[in-house]
């Protein structure tokens, strides 16, 4: 007889939801989280699209520690001296099904964990699972410090830097082009100042993504999210590109913060935290096996994350994957078969859900980004030069727009531009 029906490793986004579903199904479940409190080790940008959370916890908005509802989107092509931005806002961003919020993980994750505990999940914090216990190739428990704890099924929700997925399902460590390094700072400012700078009310905020200068032309980008009384600002750079860059990633963030288009946003603020974390961005083709005998993988431990350039999504995927993992594990426990075959319904459920559907749709995007350096190196400056022709006047007679702008595009090469645009659209 095992100690628990299920053990969940990690309490970020996927873990607590998996535990919640198991507890709701009447199964005994233990969550082991290495942080002294949940969220103590976690970093996201971050904006949470709430659709998947709403499915599991419909009343979340009443009690979850959310920062600001995002009602303003900006995407910028940031060049050395210029910045060209598209801004979008829509009343639909306030409709429940589309709602997204900025979150801070050290506040949000403890709340998620509390929901699982309330449903009946048990928690151990402050200790990492060091290895899996296996019998005849089947996962039967975990080793955490001195303790060997057994379970009928183990759910790995230990995130992108999993040290266990290899042993569990033979997943290889991610390659440097399948992960990006995120470096982030939290900058404290009065709430009203943030609202004024973001052009929002105090409950609402902005999400702002940048390509070009933030990574000094490398694959990746910069982000800004407004929280209640802090601003999250960071850079995400693909590791394979970053290792050859002349500039260290923390210096990229420093330069990004000092860019004239960005600096006024955080001016007068105090940096209260400096964090770093990996992001899985290998896409659908980097997914490892999602089940093994006695084990399931949910969230970024299985590379579930979408970096589509204009947005990073991992939390809504992890929450949905946690839900399906918990439900599939509970069903397998009830049926008395937690072998890989008994757990196979999990993969099918994910294939039918937006998690793997969206990852499949965007399957070609990682390769597109990696193989289109112009996107990061030359297009931001090109956009700036076009804008110069529109807006910079010094009393010299203006040239017809066609004559002023076409040479700029020609310089980049019409066919390359058209080709990149077409491939980009196809990849999306």
């Amino acid at each position, binding site marked *: 007889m095992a100690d628990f029906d299920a053990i969940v490793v990690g309490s970020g986004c996927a873990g607590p939801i998996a535990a919640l579903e198991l507890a709701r199904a009447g199964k005994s479940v233990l969550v082991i989280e290495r942080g002294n409190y949940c969220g103590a080790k976690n970093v996201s940008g971050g904006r949470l699209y709430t659709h998947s959370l709403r499915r599991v916890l419909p009343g979340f908005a009443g009690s979850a520690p959310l920062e600001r509802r995002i009602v303003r989107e900006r995407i910028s092509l940031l060049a050395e001296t210029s910045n060209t931005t598209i801004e979008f806002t829509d009343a639909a961003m306030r409709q429940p099904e589309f709602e997204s919020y900025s979150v801070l993980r050290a506040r949000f994750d403890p709340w998620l964990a509390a929901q699982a505990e309330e449903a009946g999940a048990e928690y151990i914090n402050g200790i*990492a699972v060091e290895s899996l216990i296996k019998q005849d190739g089947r996962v039967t428990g975990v080793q955490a410090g001195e303790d060997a704890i057994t379970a009928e099924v183990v759910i790995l929700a230990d995130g992108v830097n999993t040290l266990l997925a290899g042993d569990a399902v033979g997943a290889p460590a991610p390659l440097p082009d399948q992960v990006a390094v995120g470096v982030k700072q939290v900058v404290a400012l009065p709430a009203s100042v943030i609202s004024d700078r973001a052009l929002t009310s105090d409950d609402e905020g902005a999400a702002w993504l940048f390509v070009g200068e933030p990574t000094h032309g490398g694959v990746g980008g910069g982000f800004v999210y407004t929280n209640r009384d*802090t601003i999250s600002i960071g850079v995400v750079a693909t590791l394979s590109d*970053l290792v050859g860059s002349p500039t260290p990633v923390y210096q990229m963030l420093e330069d990004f913060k000092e860019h004239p288009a960005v600096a006024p946003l955080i001016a007068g603020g105090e940096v209260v935290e*400096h964090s770093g974390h990996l992001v899985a961005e290998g896409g659908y083709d980097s997914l490892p096996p999602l089940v093994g005998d006695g084990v399931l993988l949910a969230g970024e431990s299985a590379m579930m994350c979408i970096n589509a350039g204009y947005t990073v999504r991992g939390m809504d995927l992890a929450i949905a994957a946690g839900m399906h993992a918990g439900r599939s594990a509970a069903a397998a426990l009830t049926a008395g078969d937690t072998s890989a075959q008994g757990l196979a319904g999990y993969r099918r459920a994910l294939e039918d859900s937006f998690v793997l559907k969206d990852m499949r749709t965007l399957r070609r995007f990682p390769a597109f980004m990696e193989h289109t350096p112009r996107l990061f190196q030359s297009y931001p400056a090109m956009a700036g030069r076009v804008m110069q022709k529109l807006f910079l006047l010094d009393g010299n007679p203006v040239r017809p727009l066609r004559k002023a702008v076409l040479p700029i595009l020609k310089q980049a090469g019409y066919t390359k531009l058209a080709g990149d645009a077409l491939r980009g659209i196809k990849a999306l």
Partner: protein
Amino acid sequence: MNTDTYLGKNKYEVDEGNPHIRLVDSPPPAEFGKLVRACPAGLYKVGADGAGTFDYAGCLECGTCRIAASGTVVASWRYPGPTMGVEYRYG
């Protein structure tokens, strides 16, 4: 630029004398240079004399050096012991 001031804002419980990341004896400079650029905490440094230094105390436990340089620079990488390491208050 030096990251020390920023890391000073973070909360850590440092496991003194018990490094969770160990490096190989003499890592090839080119491989070490990769980590100078990729470590978000700036813990891999090259001094004026060209010698590389590393201090695990400010580690953000991201795993970047594990992915980028296991075997070449990083000899072993594990999470810090119970209750040790970085403790984010915002995240």
